[in-house]
């Protein structure tokens, strides 16, 4: 079960001809797939394409009606390998994942797929996680397109353009027997918008039809001599076919006047940002009526020589707007112009930075530089001769505003795992700790600051494999359940068994692929109608040959977590020590349980709501608890008490009562300030009876104490 319900979105997939779809960009792509007559879809979740996977997972009925196969692939490699269904059969297939990390994993399958080529249209929908808010290394997908010779679409970021690109992509793929990648940037995936829908199309040939009538052609298999032939085919047949399709169907666009002394060539994905920069300079408007010619590359690979030379003909200078590095487009366009003997000056990286996201400011600054140098008459007066207008000196807040990176959610079951690890390190000293990809990577940040490297999904333990020296302090590595099933079982666990690693491996099992939105995986505890779940990680680990395996069923038990880690680090047993630490992702658990609890409360059933609190007078404000928590609901509160200098701990109403505060206070012997309140709605007769009895006796004790004591009622706060 994904963390968001897509019941409403699923209905949008049923829209027919002439209706209007409204929603996120990634959902528009999903609808476009169905309108394109796609026969099968697969992929691996991850921002920004998770919603595509989630919606399809929730729309099994529609897919069944249309005869479309959908699968949640084990990895990006599995998703891309799945596209082999389009090699011999004229079935349209699509795979989706985040990039560049997904392409890194998929590249083996992608290269094989691209070598033999395809019969049915195949589309890879690549969610680019680049720039602000990105969670991965900053690289480009472009090189994967050029090295494997796969066409790359980069459409303008609006719904009609993206939907058209999906349809064009399939047609282009079929026309050139080549897989096509559709690159969508993260903001375009999440942008809201609308487009006019068409009817969904049932695939002309379904996977069922294909299975019933198998075909094969030896010359499509990647093995010599066919592989040599594939390379020739790419150059002699597929590339020219692609170019003529792109030219004939005008996949690339032109805006602004037909002629001009200068012009701009840009990636489709950059269009809105470039138009805004021009608009701010008075050179375009809200509707894209630009006053300088623009050539928009909705296809960034391959480039069409005639289009480039044609656009540059008669221009003094052309600016290339190409986000990221290396500057593949600029270099390629430079070569095209040079070969054509063009005198047009090529401007790009320089006024625009080589690396980093092209934000509004970057584009504006770059455009001003370009125009100042090559088209000063076009610039507004103010930009041509910047008049230093006195601006109020706004104080610099960079030393004031604290950084706020993402972190563990309120009640996250991974927090106590790292609290325990911190306690173990306090006792046994620091260890080499390797991290993996997933929510648990937040451990590297304050307050835990645990973990020194992350080498890729499912590769945490593998990345610690060099650290083997008998008798030395053991390494600790973390891996999430998502990474474990993605490839960690073989790359990390199998590798550790085979090489007789002596380190400690902690599998953080939160029942979902949680960081990507709470999708089910093999070890999920939920019953999934279309997927096989409930496969215990411990069994897989044992099957791999690990002998020392421990299962923790409640990670919030910090004492147990600490003890098992200590045991793993100090036991005489050699070979990998695997601890599977399992508790459900709190975000998903709350989404699952909250409505049920509300319903039960309404129905008059006994419902217990847990929350933690702090006794302010007991708390001394040393914040030791925060250094073992970092929970968003545990904050600081300044008291209105002249005797107290430092703020005390305070727990707000967002607390979900996970128990970490109390457990940590106990395990680390911190302080007795925390208390847990279990408020009981619709108490049973027994609850009421015991409460009355307890209250009466407690009241008596309190009265007795008060009688003998001088009482100064709390003066401070309410």
């Amino acid at each position, binding site marked *: 079960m994904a963390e968001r319900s897509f019941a409403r979105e699923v209905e949008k997939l049923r829209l027919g001809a002439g209706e209007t779809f409204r929603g996120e960009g990634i959902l528009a792509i999903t609808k476009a797939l169905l309108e394109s007559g796609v026969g099968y879809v697969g992929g691996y979740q991850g921002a920004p394409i998770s919603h595509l996977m989630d919606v399809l997972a929730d729309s099994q009925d529609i897919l069944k009606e249309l005869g479309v196969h959908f699968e949640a692939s084990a990895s990006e490699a599995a998703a891309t390998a799945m596209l082999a269904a389009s090699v011999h059969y004229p079935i349209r297939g699509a795979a989706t994942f985040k990039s560049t990390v997904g392409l890194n994993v998929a590249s083996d399958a992608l290269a094989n797929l691209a070598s033999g080529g395809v019969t049915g249209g195949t589309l890879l929908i690549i969610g680019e996680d680049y720039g602000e808010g990105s969670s991965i290394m900053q690289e480009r997908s472009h090189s994967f397109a050029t090295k494997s010779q796969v066409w790359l679409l980069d459409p303008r970021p609006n719904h009609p353009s993206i939907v058209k690109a999906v349809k064009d992509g399939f047609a282009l793929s079929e026309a050139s027997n080549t897989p096509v990648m559709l690159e969508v940037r993260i903001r375009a995936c999440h942008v809201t918008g609308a487009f006019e829908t068409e009817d969904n199309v049932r695939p002309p040939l379904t996977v069922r039809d294909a299975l019933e009538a198998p075909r094969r052609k030896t010359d499509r298999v990647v093995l010599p001599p066919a592989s040599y032939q594939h390379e020739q085919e790419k150059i002699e047949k597929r590339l020219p076919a692609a170019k003529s399709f792109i030219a004939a169907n005008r996949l690339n666009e032109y805006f602004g006047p037909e002629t001009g002394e200068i012009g701009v060539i840009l990636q489709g994905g950059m269009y809105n940002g470039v138009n805004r920069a021009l608009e701010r300079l008075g050179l375009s408007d809200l509707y894209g009526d630009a006053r300088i010619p623009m050539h928009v590359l909705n296809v960034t690979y391959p480039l069409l020589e005639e289009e480039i030379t044609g656009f540059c003909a008669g221009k003094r200078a052309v600016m290339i707007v190409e986000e990221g590095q290396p500057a593949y487009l600029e270099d390629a366009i430079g070569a095209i112009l040079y070969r054509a003997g063009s005198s047009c000056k090529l401007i790009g990286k320089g006024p625009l930075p080589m690396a980093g996201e092209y934000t509004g400011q970057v584009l504006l600054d770059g455009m001003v530089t370009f125009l100042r140098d090559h088209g000063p008459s076009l610039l507004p007066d103010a930009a041509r001769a910047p008049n230093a207008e006195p601006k109020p000196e706004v104080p610099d807040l960079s030393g004031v*505003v604290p*950084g706020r990176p993402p972190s563990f959610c309120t009640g996250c079951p991974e927090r106590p795992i790292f609290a325990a690890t911190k306690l173990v390190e306090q006792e046994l000293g620091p260890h080499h700790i390797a991290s993996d990809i997933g929510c648990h990577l*937040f451990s590297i940040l304050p*307050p835990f600051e645990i973990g020194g490297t992350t080498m890729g999904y499912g590769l945490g333990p593998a990345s610690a494999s060099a650290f083997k020296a008998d008798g030395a302090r053991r390494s600790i590595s973390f891996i999430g359940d998502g990474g474990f099933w993605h490839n960690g079982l073989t790359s990390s666990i199998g590798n550790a068994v085979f090489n007789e690693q002596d380190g400690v491996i902690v599998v953080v099992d939160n029942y979902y692929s949680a960081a990507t939105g709470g999708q089910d995986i093999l070890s999920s505890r939920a019953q999934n109608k279309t997927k096989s779940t409930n496969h215990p990680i411990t069994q897989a680990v044992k099957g791999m040959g690990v002998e020392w395996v421990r299962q923790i069923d409640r990670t919030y038990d910090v004492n147990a977590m600490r003890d098992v880690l200590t045991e793993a680090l100090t036991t005489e047993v050699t070979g990998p020590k695997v601890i599977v630490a399992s508790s459900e992702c709190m975000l998903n658990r709350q989404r699952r349980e909250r409505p049920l609890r509300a319903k039960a409360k309404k129905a008059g059933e006994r419902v217990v709501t847990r929350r933690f609190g702090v006794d302010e007078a007991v708390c001394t404000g040393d*914040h*030791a608890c925060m250094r073992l928590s970092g929970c968003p609901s545990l904050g600081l509160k300044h008291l209105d008490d002249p005797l107290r200098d430092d703020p005390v701990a305070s727990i707000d109403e967002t607390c979900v009562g996970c128990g970490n505060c*109390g457990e940590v206070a106990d395990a680390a012997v911190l302080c007795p300030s925390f208390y847990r309140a279990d408020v009981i709605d619709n108490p049973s007769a027994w609850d009421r009876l015991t409460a009355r009895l307890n209250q009466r006796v407690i009241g008596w004790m309190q009265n007795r104490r008060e009688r003998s004591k*001088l*009482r100064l009622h709390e003066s401070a*706060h309410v």
Partner: protein
Amino acid sequence: MFDRGERPDAPTIIKLAIMAVGGQGGGVLTNWVVELAEAQGWHAQATAVAGVAQRTGATIYYIEMAPDTGRAPVFSLAPAPGDVDVLIAAEWMEAGRAVMRGFVTPDRTTLIASTHRAQAIVEKIVPGDGTAPAEEVDAAVRLAARDLIAFDMQRPAVASGSVISATLFGALAGSGSLPFEASAFEDVIRRSGRGVDASLKAFLCGLDGPSDEPATPVLREKPAVVGTDAQLAAYAKLKDRLSGLPEPAREMAAAGLRKVVDFQDVDYGGEYLDLVDGFAARDGHPEALLTVAAAKHIANAMAYDDVIRVADLKTRRDRFSRIDAEMNRADRAMHLTEFMHPRIEEVCSTLPARLGQWIEDRPRLSAWLDRRINRGRRVRTDTIWGFGMLWLVAGRKPHRRGTLRHRIETEHRDRWLEIVHETLATDYALATETLNCRRLIKGYSDTHVRGNSKFDKVLSALPLLEGREDAADWLRRLREAALQDEHGKALDGALKTVQSFTQEPAPAP
């Protein structure tokens, strides 16, 4: 930057950015704004880098909108510095971040910001007070924003049983920065169909702006004192003694007196005032800084955090009513669990001093006992047994003066005050700062031990500093360094600096 080159006939467009922290409903607010604009026949586009937003990080949502003229507008997908009309910040430091990033500019931006704080982790983990200075953001937003609507929007949202997004939506309606009627805003909330009543209530709080109530209701009236006539008379007599103190120190001494009497008894209050008097008599400063510091820190030192105090605080009647209010208990049943982890140290410290010392002097016995005592105990203070146990411990109060802990605390206190008195003979400011160092001692068990060692470490610099003009300043710096991090790295660095310029051999660790 330069003047904007927009054509005078440029079509209307409104650019609105929302800066929020995960869990504040930034996504919901964004959807509301888009639905509002579309319901009014405008084009609207929203985008965000979601996903990470769930995970408590700072997130920007961005919306552009323009009236429908029959043509499709080309909207930008991200806000640009100097190009934002309305900025909504769901938290005060996020407002600061917006200014820092240039999204709030005096020529165009209406800033709608909640002044409440949700501290970032880096602020929380500091042993002292790591909270970012809100007043610096205050100064900056006043300069940066064209129009400013700033008040605590979190409190009314929580009080309405809703989320801050609803209050912000109300404040947006109230700001008049969108050309739509408030009723159109309300319609959007009604159509959303979820938690409508609570959201509308919070919305109206935002629409109406700040209420006149103080941010945190404080009971200002004098605390009621209840007790026997003899007790009341004795306490009144002590309070009369306050007027003998320098005027600036009286309020602090009154608070201190209340604290120590509450901690032990009226006699203890007398001891406290004797100690404070000792400094007041030697204080000639017009602001009586020394006496203020003495009144404050002697009270804290005397009201140390022992087991008896914890048990006492946890069994008081007003504690239970406070928790009832905090948990919105009303007439529901409630279980209350305390998390205690007693060790042999705590047990010994509560025993009569000689017995406690006798056990502590026998490591094997004390280890044997510790194995039986040292574990986490969950105590249910809503039950007769759990409450009764703590109640009995709290009942040890009349015997507190005889405990080992009291002896240790009193000796420590006297040693410290003796140093202060000695220092006072030559350096008033340094003596005052020496008093202030008491702030370093807090926490329980290991944290308390660490606090004590930091306190000793800071005071170890006294011999090096004595006689220097800037001695007090340096002692203050050392104390502040000690409060910066858990392990005292900053303190060690600062101490090295002191040692380097005093040219003295390092003090023994």
